[in-house]
């Protein structure tokens, strides 16, 4: 009875769901990023205002801007000396504008990742993706903790064995190949085994033989 009533109330109108909102955010960040490339200098002010609002939104949701600022400063440190060397002092302002544009192109991406949940972005992306590749992405993200755990264990064991791959030894580039052979190679072997097992498990569950695959309900937490 209760369930019926609730259903009756919810059905009639269209709800602007979280994934629609996320798709809109994705589009907005795409438009703003390309705006940083193609807008003339006179319109740059408006872009700065919009991006500033985005930054405020991101900071309001307790995200850190420091990493972004560091990238911007690094870009400035590379570009300005080059401008100074090649064009002299009077074109330094142009260099600053260029760096500003690069920074403005990065900001919407930061905002997107700061405000949107990864699973929502994944859902939006899966609208255009074939089932198999959506499954592959879901499987690899789902198995990520396992892969990391495996990598950590292999690393710890190789360290115990006495391989020269402790953080201190890795300061010397001569030890880098050892890291590849001791850690990355076993990880690759594990990944090959894992992919074989997963493919077999999925095939035994008739993966790929049904035209319209079923999905785990994705919007549970919003209900």
């Amino acid at each position, binding site marked *: 009875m209760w369930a019926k009533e609730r259903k009756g109330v919810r059905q009639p109108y269209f709800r602007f769901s979280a994934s629609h909102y996320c798709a809109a955010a994705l589009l907005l*960040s795409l438009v703003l*990023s390309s705006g*940083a*490339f193609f807008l003339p200098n006179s319109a740059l002010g408006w872009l700065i205002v919009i991006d500033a609002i985005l930054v405020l939104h991101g900071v309001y949701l307790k995200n850190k801007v420091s990493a*972004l600022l560091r*990238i911007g400063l690094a870009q400035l440190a*590379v*570009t300005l000396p*080059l*401008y100074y060397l*090649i*064009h002299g002092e009077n074109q330094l302002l142009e*260099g600053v504008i*260029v760096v500003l*544009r*690069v920074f403005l*192109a*990065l900001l919407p*991406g*930061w905002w*997107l*990742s*700061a405000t949107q949940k*990864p699973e929502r*972005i*994944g859902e939006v*992306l899966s609208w255009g*993706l*074939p089932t*198999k*590749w959506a499954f*592959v*992405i879901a*499987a*690899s*993200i789902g*198995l*990520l903790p396992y*892969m*990391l755990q495996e990598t950590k264990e292999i690393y710890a064991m190789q360290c115990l064995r006495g391989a020269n791959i402790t953080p201190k030894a890795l300061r010397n580039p001569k030890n*880098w*190949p050892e890291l590849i*052979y001791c850690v*990355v*190679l076993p*990880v*690759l*072997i594990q*990944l*090959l*085994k*894992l*992919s*074989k097992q*997963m*493919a077999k498990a*999925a*095939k035994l569950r008739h*993966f*790929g033989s049904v035209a319209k695959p079923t999905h785990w309900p994705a919007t549970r937490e919003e209900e």
Partner: protein
Amino acid sequence: MKSPFDLQDALFIGFCATLLVVLKSMLRLKLGLSGHSMFLMTFFYLICYGVVNRVGAMTVCGLLAGLVAMMLSVGKGGPMILLKFGLPAMAMDFALLFMSGVFNLRWRSIVLALIGTLAWAGKGLISNLLIGMSGQVALAEFGLSFIQGGMFALAAALLIPTVLSRLHAHDLLPNRPE
């Protein structure tokens, strides 16, 4: 995208792409040098090519890595990262079309690594020019990033034949890398 890959290869490519993204995000904290991402990218793309042994594997790996990076919001995030991962992979695959069977594995991976770096640095050059940077400065930055990225990519390419032959020794590859 009609996929000729069977599920096992597809999964392996997906795992490689995910590992690439995660390792890259871990490494960028330690090293300030630009271009070190080319090491991981070249390494995993060439491994994918060597294991799956098919044209298109690298492109798929690059695009998947871009998608995963976008979802995990690694690096600068946003839709641009798809191009960042995808473009070198596409260039490498495109080059592979013209040179399959020409060189041995070692030289092929070196040439592919350099082509990938070219595409990677070229993408920076084009975006810098679009943004209105003066041509000379953009070219200088292009040269700088090509040299840095090229060194890392070469180091990765030199490791590939050994790693592949060791994987073959574990009986994990369907056919022997030449």
